[in-house]
Each structure stands twice: as structure tokens, then as C-alpha cells.
């Protein structure tokens, strides 16, 4: 099985995000970055499929030089090959990103392509389905379980939908996007980290991909901090009184019950 995982590097979700003066972006000085959490599931799933069926796993990451760190993390988990597409991931919208990823993927052999359900920075949920369209592949999004058939020609995936789970059979090759709890991602080991250092990361730039005048269709006018929540009230007194007061406030002031 040849498996490709599209991995994005995103700001650490533990940290505070500050919008730059003027609203043209966020303050990136001192910002810590991590592998997008959903890709941890995607990489883990790829490794498990490889362990069962044999084959190899390749990660592809589009982004500036800092993303090499995310690539190394994936290699340390056990990924075999890595491709870095040096681009500003802030200037390309998700559909343009998918275009660039597509051109890189077209140079490879693949049976399965895995993405995260969304990147936690832009939260778009667009790249997976757009890749599937550009590569003319079927897609199953938001999956919490993937079972590959013994013959490697199809897969049954469980996708999370409103009010339940849709069980979908798809022919392979196909694109899947990972939902939380698809599996339990492994941690990179020290041995893995040492081995990862020896793997060469392939770099493909615009010219290599034959992409010349690629532009984003959507245009960001402004980035704003979220609206402040109005200050709250702390209720004090004996538990019985507090509870009575809370019910009154919920009814008469907030009007929510």
C-alpha cells in the first residue's frame, strides 16, 4: 500500500493568539507550532495500514521553512518519505493549497490519501474534498474508523454525521479525512527521531510543479480579535440562596430558561 498523508503545521493550540495591529495577520514572533492535531490521527492510521499490508508512507507539507519541524515529527513516528512544498501557507486559500498539493501528489503512486478533518488554524474543511476532486478520486470525510479489504481494493469507513454514523464503502484509491479518535496516535520515539534525521526531505517548488500564476480566489480583508464577553457576576452566599438567585437570574435577567 502506498499511502500519502497531507500534514499541515499550525500554531500550538495551547497558546494565546494575538491579532497584529492593522488586522493583516497574527503576531508570529515567539509563536510555537505543532502538527495539526487531526493529522496525528491520519499519520497513525497510515502507519497502521502499512504495518498490516506493507508499503510505504509519505507525508507532504506545504508551508514556510518552519514546517520542517512538523515533518521531522512525522518521520520520527515512522513515516518513510517526506516532501516539503515551500510556500506561504497564509497567502494561499485552502482551494489553492489543494491545487499545489495535487500537483505534488500526481508525481507519486498512491492507494490511499489521508488528510485531517480540518486545519485548526483556518478551520476550513476544504482541502480533503478539493484534493479528491482534482485527482478524480472518491472521498470519505470525517472518519472514525477505516477498514481496508483484504485484497486492498476497497475500504469501509465510518463517518460521523449529525445524529449518527454513516458506514460507507469506497473503492481505492480514495481520500479520507480523519476525525478525532480514529485511533490512538503513537509518540515519536528517541530511536525514531535519530532515524528521522537521516531521511532526506524532498523539496518541490512552484517551478518543479509547473504552477505559474496560481492565485487564491478568496481574499481576506481583515483579521479581528473575538468580541469580548461582557463581565460576569460571581454569586455569593449559602448554597441554597445562591441556587435561588441563579434561577432568578437565568429567568429574569438572561431570559434563557
Amino acid at each position, binding site marked *: 500500500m502506498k499511502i500519502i498523508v497531507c500534514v499541515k503545521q499550525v500554531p500550538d493550540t495551547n497558546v494565546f493568539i494575538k491579532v497584529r495591529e492593522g488586522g493583516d495577520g497574527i503576531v508570529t514572533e515567539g509563536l510555537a507550532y505543532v502538527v495539526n492535531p487531526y493529522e496525528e490521527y491520519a499519520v497513525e492510521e497510515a502507519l497502521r495500514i502499512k504495518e498490516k499490508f506493507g508499503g510505504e508512507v509519505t507525508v507532504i507539507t506545504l508551508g514556510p521553512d518552519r514546517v520542517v519541524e512538523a515533518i521531522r515529527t512525522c518521520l520520527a513516528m515512522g513515516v518513510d518519505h517526506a516532501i516539503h512544498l515551500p510556500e506561504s501557507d497564509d497567502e494561499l486559500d485552502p482551494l489553492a493549497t489543494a491545487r499545489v498539493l495535487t500537483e505534488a501528489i500526481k508525481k507519486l503512486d498512491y492507494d490511499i490519501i489521508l488528510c485531517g478533518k480540518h486545519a*485548526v488554524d483556518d478551520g476550513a474543511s476544504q482541502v480533503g474534498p478539493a484534493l479528491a476532486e482534482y485527482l478524480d478520486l472518491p472521498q470519505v470525510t470525517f472518519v472514525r474508523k477505516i477498514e481496508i479489504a483484504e485484497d486492498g481494493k476497497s475500504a469501509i469507513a465510518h463517518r460521523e454525521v449529525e445524529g449518527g454514523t454513516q458506514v*460507507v464503502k469506497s473503492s481505492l484509491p480514495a481520500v479520507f479525512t480523519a476525525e478525532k479518535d480514529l485511533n490512538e496516535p503513537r509518540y515519536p520515539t528517541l530511536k525514531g527521531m535519530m532515524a528521522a534525521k537521516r531521511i532526506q526531505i524532498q523539496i518541490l517548488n512552484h517551478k518543479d510543479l509547473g504552477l505559474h500564476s496560481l492565485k487564491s480566489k478568496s481574499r481576506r*480583508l481583515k483579521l479581528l480579535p473575538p468580541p469580548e464577553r461582557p463581565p460576569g*457576576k460571581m454569586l455569593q452566599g449559602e448554597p441554597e440562596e445562591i441556587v435561588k438567585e441563579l434561577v432568578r437570574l*437565568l429567568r429574569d435577567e438572561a431570559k434563557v430558561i
Partner: protein
Amino acid sequence: MVLIWAEEKEGILPRSTLEVLSMGKKIAEPLGEELGAVLIADSNRAAGTLGKKGVRKVYAADDPALRDYRTEPYTQIFTSLIEEHHPSILLLSHTSSGKDLAPRVAARLNVGLISDCTQLDLQDGSLVATRPMYTGKALAQVTLPAEMNPKIFTLRPKAFPASEKEEGGECEVIIVEVPQLMARTEVLELKKTPKGSLDVAEADIVVSGGRGLKGPENFEIIEELAQALGAAVGASRAVVDAGWRDHKDQVGQTGKQITPKLYFACGISGAIQHQVGMRNSKCIVAINKDPNAPIFKLASYGIVGDLFKIVPLLTEELKKIRD
């Protein structure tokens, strides 16, 4: 034309569709455009309701093979409709199907898409979308080129008002030819979540519990409070990872991002990843024994105290006022 996708379930239009419908109407009127809806189902019985709510043209594809959402046949129906009727705007809900379909349609037609919008404003005749970024730690205002049609937007459920009014208008139902269905995927089964368990993403009131509950058996007091309020039960990641609650109930960055009108955080510290899932709730009540818990920064009403005392008392009080 402003076109919307009227997602339906067994003949009923869910709230998320009514929200897209009301937004479609709000945009179509000042633009002087007609409001159309795509209805893909095993029957077109929901068409009448759409007419009553202001839709003038319903493009209905009814075929038993279309009962379950599938990416490729639905993409074919949408793209051929768009190529024939050239709508200027297409609105979908940011549901599991809307998220799956919109990028595929946009990619096929080579047009732009802005997803997960929480606000849409007409400014000088063009639409400006507001959407959360960095899991709600910032908001972006985004546009698509005016000359490009259609401009596609997916709207976050519960961020827009639902259309309530019935006006009794007439609508034309145009039967859409169902394309040769591509069979690369097949829906084998839909496992429904058991009835009675309200979905945290859909409920108006959510009562969530965290590690402060000490053990899965103690969630009983949370469930009783939820029942007294007609609320759904949510959970922090800590208790989901511990196996006390199901992942579908998890609120937060790797769970659901919800916007109920009332949210209770009981024994939840309020880590940033939890906050991004609930900070847009209209009213937030926090119950925690630690006065320095970060959840109090978001709380509309904060109670410093032992949840094992407060929560049952609150349930009692609510039952009293009900009776």
C-alpha cells in the same frame, strides 16, 4: 439567482436548513434576485414548505437512490444545475454533508468558497463573510471576487436565525434529471444515535461535566440537571479520554464547537481548548470549587463551590418552579 441547498431528513427541513433559507432570503431581496433551492431526496414532499418560506423555484431531484447523501452524485446534480442556471450565490449549511459537498463543487467549477461563516453582510452589493479562525481566537472578514459566479458559502449551524414565518407563497417545482449515478462509494448503513440523547451541537441548553465529577457514576447528577432543563449532556476531553463519556459529547477544540443559549460547566477548569468549544454560548454558568479556575473568566454567572452540593440543589429548585 441566490441558490440554497435545502438539506432534508425524511421530508422534514432541519433547523440548519431553515437558517440557510432565511439568510438566502435576506440576501436575495436587496440584490433583486430570485431565491431558489435544491432539494435532493427520495421524494419532493418538502417543496411546499420551501414555497411557504419564500423560495420561488425548487429544483427537485427525487430518486430512492438519492436518499443517503453521497459526494459524487450530489456533486453532479449541483454542478449541472449551476451550469444551467448560473446562480450568483450558493449557500449551504456547514453540516457533515455541506462540508463534504461544497469544496468538491467549488473545485469542479473552479470558483471560490468561504466555509464556516458566522456572519454574512452585504456591503456595496457584495457579500462580506465573517468566519472564526484559530478555533475562534480570531475572526476573519473574507470576500470572493464579484465577477465570479457562483460565490459559495457554508454557514455554521446555529449562528444565524432560522426562518420562522410562513407566508403562503407559491413555488415552481422543477424536476431535475438524475444523472447516471457513479458508484465508487456506497452507503451500507446509517447507525442512528439512540433517541432521547440530545446532540450537544443541536441543543439549546447544554450541561457539561468535567474531571471535577470524580467518576463516571457521578454523571448522574449532571444528567438529572440536564433532564430538568431539557438539556443535552456535554463533557470535557479529560472525561472523554478517561472513558467516562462518549466522544460525541465532547465540547472543545477536538470535540464540538457549540453555541447554545445556555451552557453549564460543572467541575471543568476551562482550559483554552475547552473554551474554544463553548465561548460563543449566549449565557455561561460555571460551577467550580477553585476560585482561580479560568472558566470564571468566561462565566456570565460564576459559583465557587462544591458541585456535589450545588448541582442537586439547582435541580431541585428548577423542578420546584416547573411544578
